[in-house]
C-alpha cells in the first residue's frame, strides 16, 4: 500500500491542517439533521476527498468504510447504453458522472432519483442520520444540462438525500447549483503544513526525516500534499538506509523532459528546433500528459529566466493558446503554435537587443 493511502486520516479528529474546516465538519457530524448540501472545492491534493470520507464516517460510523465497487448500466432515451462505475456503501454512493461524457445528464437524473426515492435503512444507532449521501466528484466536468438537472433534484429530494459535490474549479459550476450548497473551500496546504504532515508520516513509518529534506520536498511539491508524500516515499525507496538532508528530491521525468524542452527553445530559435520540439511534444502527449499541463509547465519553465518586459506577452499567448486547446480537438497544433510564437517573440527581442 502506498503511504498516501496508508496514512490517510479516516476520522475527523485525525485531520491535520485546516482546523477551522475540521471544526465546522465536526459540528455538522454532531447534528446531522441540520446538514445542508455541501460543496467542497479546492486544488487537487489539498484533501477534499479525505475530508468527505471522514465526514461520512463521522455521520454514519464504521459502515461507510465497507465499500464495494458497482458497475451500473443505464439506457438513455435514444437507446444508448452507458456504463458507469460507482463506489457504494450502505449509506452513501460515490460517482463521477463526468465519466459518462455527453450522456451525464441521464446519469444525474436517474441515479439521484433512484437513490433519493428509497430511504435509508436506518440502523438502530441513535446518531446515524436518516438520509443517504450522494457524493458527486468532478462536478466541474458535468455538462450544463446535467448541472441544470441537478437544480430541482437537490431541492425535491433533499429530505431523503444529501449531495456532497466535489470539484477543483468553482467557476465551471452554475450559480443555481452553487447557491443551493454550503461551500467549503479546501485550500492547498502551506509549505509548513506539508512539512508537519511529512514528519508525522515519517514517524509512523519509523524513519528519520531531516528538516532540510522536508522543506525541499514541500517546495517541490507545489503545495500538493499527495505529491509531497509520494515524493517522500520515492526518496525513501532511493535511499533505503536512511534519508539524508541534502539528497536530491526526485522530480517526475516528464517535468524534467519539459524543462529540457524549454532550455532547447530558449537556446536556439530555428525551424529545425521547432521540428525537434514537435517530437518531444508528441512523446509527452503519447505518455498521456494533458496538453494544458504541458503548456502550463512549459510557460513556468520558460518564464523562469526571461526578461520582465517579455513576460506579459508570453502569458498573453499562453492564455490564448491554452484556450484554443480547450476549444479545439487537435492539441499538438496549439502547442506547436505557442512554441513558434514564443520563438518569434524571443528572436525579435534578441535581435533588438544585439542589433
Amino acid at each position, binding site marked *: 500500500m502506498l503511504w498516501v493511502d496508508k496514512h490517510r486520516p479516516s476520522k475527523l479528529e485525525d485531520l491535520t491542517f485546516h482546523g477551522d474546516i475540521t471544526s465546522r465538519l465536526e459540528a455538522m457530524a454532531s447534528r446531522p*439533521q441540520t446538514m445542508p448540501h455541501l460543496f467542497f472545492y*479546492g486544488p487537487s491534493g489539498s484533501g477534499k476527498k479525505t475530508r468527505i470520507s471522514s465526514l461520512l464516517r463521522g455521520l454514519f460510523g464504521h459502515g461507510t468504510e465497507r465499500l464495494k465497487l458497482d458497475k451500473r448500466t443505464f439506457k438513455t432515451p435514444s437507446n444508448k447504453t452507458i456504463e458507469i462505475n460507482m463506489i457504494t456503501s450502505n449509506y452513501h454512493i460515490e460517482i463521477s458522472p463526468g465519466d459518462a461524457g455527453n450522456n451525464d445528464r441521464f446519469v444525474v437524473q436517474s441515479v439521484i432519483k433512484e437513490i433519493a426515492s428509497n430511504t435509508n435503512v436506518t440502523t438502530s444507532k441513535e446518531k446515524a442520520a436518516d438520509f443517504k449521501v450522494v457524493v458527486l466528484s468532478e462536478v466541474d466536468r458535468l455538462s450544463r444540462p446535467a448541472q441544470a*438537472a441537478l*437544480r430541482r433534484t437537490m431541492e425535491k429530494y433533499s429530505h431523503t438525500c444529501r449531495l456532497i459535490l466535489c470539484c477543483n474549479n468553482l*467557476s465551471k459550476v452554475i450559480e443555481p447549483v452553487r*447557491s443551493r450548497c*454550503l461551500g467549503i473551500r479546501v*485550500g492547498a496546504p502551506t509549505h509548513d503544513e506539508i512539512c508537519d504532515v511529512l514528519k508525522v508520516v515519517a514517524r509512523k513509518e519509523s524513519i528519520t526525516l531531516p528538516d532540510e529534506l522536508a522543506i525541499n520536498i514541500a517546495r517541490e511539491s507545489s503545495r500538493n500534499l499527495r505529491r509531497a508524500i509520494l515524493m517522500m516515499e520515492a526518496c525513501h525507496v532511493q535511499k533505503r538506509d536512511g534519508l539524508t538532508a541534502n539528497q536530491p528530491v526526485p522530480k517526475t521525468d516528464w517535468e524534467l523532459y519539459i524543462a529540457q524542452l524549454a532550455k532547447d527553445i530558449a537556446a536556439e530559435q530555428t525551424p529545425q528546433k521547432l521540428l525537434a520540439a514537435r517530437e518531444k511534444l508528441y512523446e509527452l502527449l503519447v505518455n498521456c500528459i494533458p496538453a494544458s499541463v504541458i503548456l502550463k509547465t512549459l510557460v513556468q519553465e520558460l518564464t523562469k529566466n526571461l526578461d520582465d518586459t517579455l513576460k506579459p506577452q508570453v502569458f498573453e499567448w499562453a*492564455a490564448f493558446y491554452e*484556450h484554443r486547446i480547450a476549444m479545439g480537438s487537435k492539441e499538438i497544433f496549439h502547442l506547436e503554435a505557442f512554441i513558434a510564437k514564443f520563438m518569434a517573440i524571443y528572436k525579435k527581442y534578441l535581435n533588438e537587443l544585439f542589433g
Partner: protein
Amino acid sequence: MPPVSAKSIPWVELYRPKNLDQVSHQVEVVATLKKAVETGQLPHLLLHGPPGSGKTSVALALCKQLYHPSQLKRRVLELNASDERGISVVRDKIKQFASLTVGGSSKSSGSNKMKSSFLVKKDNQKDEKMDEGEDTKHYPNPPFKIIILDEADAVTPDAQAALRRIIEAYSNITRFILICNYVSRIIEPVASRCAKFRFQSLPVDSMKKRLQDIASHEGLTVKDDIVDEVLKLSGGDMRKAVTTLQCVHSLGGSSSCNVTTETIYEMVGLCTPGVFDALWEDIWSGEIGRVQKTVDDICADGFSAQFLLDGLTDKVVSSDKINDMAKATIAIKIAEAEKMMIDGADEGLQLMNVCSHALTAVATSKK
C-alpha cells in the same frame, strides 16, 4: 414518500411561501394572480426573473390556493430540468396530461378511462363535489389543470416548437406556467401565448424581514452584522440568503457565536476582500515576479478566478489612481478572460494574462 421529521427539510423548502400572501415583495405579480384565484380565470403564465426571486414559489403557491390538496396531484404536473424533457416527452407526457379532461376522480384515473367523454367528465365532477363536500368550498377549483414547466429555458427549441400547438389546442382544459431565468431563450411563439411576469431581485429590507422571521421561528439569534453580510452576499437571491442562514445555524448552533463574516464569504464561495487588496497592491508595484507568485498562491488556495475577476473589476473601476484608458484596457482583458474561462481554459493562465496586462496598463498610466 415516507414520513420525515421536519427538521431534516432544508429551510428553503420548509419556509417556502404556502400561499400568495406570504410571497415577499413581488407585489404586482401577486396582486394579479390573486385576482386570478378569486375569479378562477387564469391565462398561461410565463414567469421570468433572476434566481431566488420566488418564481417557483409563486407557481406552487398559486396551485395550492387553486386546488384542494387531494386534487393537487391530479391537477398539477410539475416538470423541471431534472426530468427528461426532450421532444418525445412533450409529445407524449405533456400532451397526454394536457388532453386529459379534468375531474376524473381517483377511481377513473386508470389509463383506460383517460379518454373519458365529455359527458362522463361532467358526471364525475358532480360526484366529486358531493364527495368532498365542505372542504372544497375554500378552493376555487377552476375547471382546468396546470402544467408547470420549471426551468423552461433548458427546454430545447425543438421541444418548445412542439409545445406551440399543444398550448393552444388544449387551452380550454389546461394552463401552462413556464418558469425561466432568461426570457430570451424561450422562442417567441411560445412567449407570445403567455402573460409575462417579470420578477425582480428582492430588495434588502424585505429579505431582511423574512430572514428575521425564519430566524425567530427557528430560535436562532443572529447578530445584525451577520444578517447584513448574508444579505449583501446573496445579491437579492432569497434562496441563497436562506441557505446561507441555515449554514450559519448549522455551523454555529443557535447563538451563531463562532461565525465571522469571513466564514460567510467562504460559505458562498467568494474570496475575502483582503485577497483583492493584496493582488492589486502587487499589480501596482509593477513587479511581474511578485504578481506571478501571488496568482499561483491564489490558485493554490482554491479561490475561484471568476469571482476574483469580479472583484478586480470593482477595484479597477473605482480606482482613482489610473486613467480611463488603462481602465478600459483592463476591462476588455477581464471580459475576454471571463469568456475563455467559461469555455474551459485554465484559470491560472487566464488570471496571469489579465494581471500582466493590468500591470502594463498601470505602469503606462503612472507615467
